């Protein structure tokens, strides 16, 4: 017998189609104010379309109720390493929602969208300045999209020089999976590069890997171990001397923004994840933005379009336009990138300005090192040195001694209202727990987190099943992911309940 309590739990999870009742409507229907025309031949038309029929109030309650099953930045501490889950300023959302931005059409004549193009131009200038590069295209719509653009630019550069044998791209073993995947999409062979015992690039291995087939290197700085590679100047020099392009994955820009410029260090092209460093909300997985930013060697190959500032004929007012770079690799999307995300990043940079931008990296790095210093001894530290914006611990001792894995620690954190850190990444760290507090968290929040992490280490020793069965307080316990993959059930079907 189902109790009313159980009914409450299950009925709020009913899918829209199972709530549907013929005749209900969720909004008013616009009226027809012109004469009707003949509809096309019936053979072209459908009468089989199934969509939910629900009232507006039902829609709002349904989506509001299930929204509360989420953790989010606005509700929870979210120290998810490599994802830079910092506070997303509300002002930025309001600015992006101004009708003068949100309602304009991407193909309007440039003269009717001067404010929007000026915003793009300003953002390009800021990103060039912050990263020390020569030119920027805001077109890529995600970090991985920026990587693809950058690697296609590297390919075009080599091909234009008649260098068609350069097929190999070196990628450290600690890299995000997008790096090898993007290099492959850009037509390259991936060669994995080991890290040394300090977590830096292994320079001997690098020297052994460079030859006439070298197209370039993709490297994340600071690395995904949360470390600033102390060999970085040697790394970029060796690759460039061998004729390769140095690609910088800017996923971890939050650690060095306002302090270190990629351009100074010998990078040829980078991308910046605006949804990390520059606060575009993550939205449950997107949208993001991943501008690609190039140094002098690659700037002419940027994806189209680029915003430019010029003068009206005869001087006078400035005039902004969208231009095609001379040797462009082409178009990354139908229009000019994710303008809504770009407007938010622009607003963020304008709010912080030259004084506030360096503050980001200062506090991000202090906060991460504080966590490191307080949890040393409670969890393993595979690389015990000053970290940058994130710290990678390992639960390998906990696993060996008590049978509690990184996954169990992560799931137990949920019971304390904290989103788990990134786990099992980077791949070169056993039982990795990658913690990125960000600069927007207070010392009080960090102290609570530290206390919880210490408690969980103690619980692991005393009652490991408490961890194995976690989380305990969520609407769902751990899921059968194997079943999901073995028997894919990917959509609503009539009668499938």
């Amino acid at each position: 017998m189902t109790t009313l309590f159980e009914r409450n739990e299950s009925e709020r999870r009913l899918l829209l189609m199972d709530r549907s009742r013929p005749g209900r409507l969720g909004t008013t229907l616009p009226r027809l104010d012109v004469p009707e025309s003949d509809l096309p031949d019936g053979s072209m038309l459908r009468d089989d379309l199934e969509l939910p029929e629900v009232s507006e109030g039902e829609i709002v309650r349904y989506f509001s109720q299930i929204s509360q099953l989420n953790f989010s930045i606005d509700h929870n501490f979210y120290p998810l390493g490599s994802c830079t889950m910092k506070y997303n300023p509300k002002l930025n959302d309001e600015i992006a929602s101004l009708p003068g931005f949100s309602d304009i059409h991407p193909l309007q004549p440039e003269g009717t969208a001067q404010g929007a193009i000026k915003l793009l131009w300003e953002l390009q200038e800021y990103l060039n300045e912050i990263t020390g590069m020569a030119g920027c295209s805001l077109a890529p719509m995600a970090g991985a999209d920026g990587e693809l653009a950058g690697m296609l630019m590297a390919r075009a550069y080599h091909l234009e020089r008649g260098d068609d044998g350069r097929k190999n791209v070196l990628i450290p073993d600690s890299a995000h999976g997008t790096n090898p995947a993007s290099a492959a999409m850009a037509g390259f062979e991936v060669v994995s590069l080991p890290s040394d015992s300090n977590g830096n690039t292994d320079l001997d291995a690098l020297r052994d890997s460079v030859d006439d087939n070298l197209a370039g290197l993709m490297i994340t700085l600071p690395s995904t171990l949360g470390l600033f590679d102390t060999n970085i100047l040697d790394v970029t020099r060796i690759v460039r001397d061998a004729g390769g392009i140095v690609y910088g994955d800017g996923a971890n820009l939050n650690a060095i923004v306002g302090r270190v410029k990629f351009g100074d260090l010998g990078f040829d092209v980078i991308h910046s994840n605006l949804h990390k460093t520059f606060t575009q909300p993550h939205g449950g997985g997107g949208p993001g933005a991943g501008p690609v930013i190039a140094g002098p060697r690659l700037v002419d190959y940027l994806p189209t379009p680029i915003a430019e500032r010029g003068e009206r004929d005869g001087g006078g007012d400035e005039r902004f336009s969208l231009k095609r770079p001379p040797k462009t690799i082409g178009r990354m999307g139908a229009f000019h990138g994710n303008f809504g995300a770009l407007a938010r990043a622009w607003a963020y940079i304008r709010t912080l300005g030259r004084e506030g931008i360096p503050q980001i990296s200062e506090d991000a790095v202090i906060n991460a090192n504080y966590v490191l210093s307080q949890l040393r001894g409670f969890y393993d530290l595979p690389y015990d040195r000053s970290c940058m914006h994130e710290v990678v611990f390992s639960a390998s001792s906990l696993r060996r001694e008590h049978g509690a894995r990184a996954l169990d620690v992560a799931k137990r954190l949920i019971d304390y209202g904290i989103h788990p850190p990134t786990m099992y990444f980077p791949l070169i760290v056993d039982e990795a727990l990658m913690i990125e507090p960000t600069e927007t968290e207070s010392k009080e929040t960090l102290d609570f987190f530290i206390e919880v992490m210490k408690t969980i280490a103690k619980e692991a020793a005393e009652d490991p099943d408490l961890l194995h069965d976690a989380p305990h307080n969520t609407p769902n316990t751990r899921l059968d992911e194997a079943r999901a993959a073995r028997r894919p059930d990917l959509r609503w079907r009539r009668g499938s309940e």
Partner: protein
Amino acid sequence: MVSDSFQSPYVPNTDADRRAMLDAIGVDSVDELFADVPDGYLNYDLDLPRGLDELELGRYAAELAATNCVPGEYACFLGAGSYRHHVPAVVRQIASRSEYMTAYTPYQPEVSQGTLQTAFEFQSMICQLTGMDVANLGMYDGSTSMAEAALMAARITRRERVAIVDSASPLYREVLDTYTQAPGLAVDTISASDTRIEDGTACVIVQQPNFFGYMEDLDRLSKLARESGALLIVSVDPVSLGMFKPPADYGADIVVGEGQALGVAPAFGGPYVGLFACKRAYVRQMPGRIVGRTVDTRGREAYVLTLQTREQHIRRERATSNICTAVALIALMSTVYAASFGRRGLRRIAELCYHKAHYAASLIEGIPGYSLPMRGTFFQEFVVECPLPPSEINERLLNLRIIGGLDVSGSVENGMLVCVTEMNSREEIESFAKALGEFGGGG
């Protein structure tokens, strides 16, 4: 007067907090934490403007926004891949809930069921609209969906040619060229009336309605693809599927499209959501995130990211794609939009666009000097051959607060691609036609 020295509202640390943390870390200054940066490479030279307070920035942003001509204040007849439709208030309200907006990718399903369940709703809705078996949680936009579909077809068929019907969007075609350049896929442009395609063609790509607004003969193209062992990829406008038969009925193997028309603002080109659906047999070759239904340890239904062995974080350079975005928030907007209008409402919106576009076409066709050079069935867009270059006409229309159609004189002499949706009132349509008559008719 209280000091106005800059303090970021987004950083809670005070100097006292910093001092306490640096002491706990065991360093004297923050510079010691940056000691791994090579000597001389800490570069504080930052040529940025000073920070603006909320009042100043609000004013500056409003000033920039005000220099744009905003559809709504202007009558606007632009489409070509970005469409203006009425978005019920509930869509923005739900999508701005911070539980959705400020969550990350749902890697931890126990605390992400909101995102995951709405994602499952989105996949279901896209399947119902397109008639296909399975759909993913979205690509960057319609154009990248189309390009990824071509790569997927090449993987499935192990063939290296792609045929695209010449009536597809030239912007989408450019993106296809970007994606196919490195894998070395040859792209053949074909006509919808061609009776054969090159041997070894992986797919035939067709846009429906096509870039010029007209319906292509999918039966024919489906047969053409099938006879050559190629897959049929159809790029759709989802609103048109409120009334027109879905691509699945014509045997489409992969259906892609731009989801923006379903409840998402034009926003100068993004963010949008690329739709991606296919036959069940091909699901393991799909790019992008996919959500599946399963059970938890207590047997309760719940949702989880699945089939992840296709993806870059596991498969690395052998992944089906490098994508790790699912444009979940935009997908949510489309889901709420479709739920609001429902079966009947979406049909209504599609028919309104159809009737209004046909009314506009009938008025324009009657103006001396103007004609509709294309024949066949169109949905909400059509091409007008003008007596003057459309760029000149559009310039003069702006003075009347009308943003005219897209200049497609590269494809059709003096061609203007006109889009009419339910957003264009009868008055706007009639003013537009009247103005065209004054500019063109008889000189």
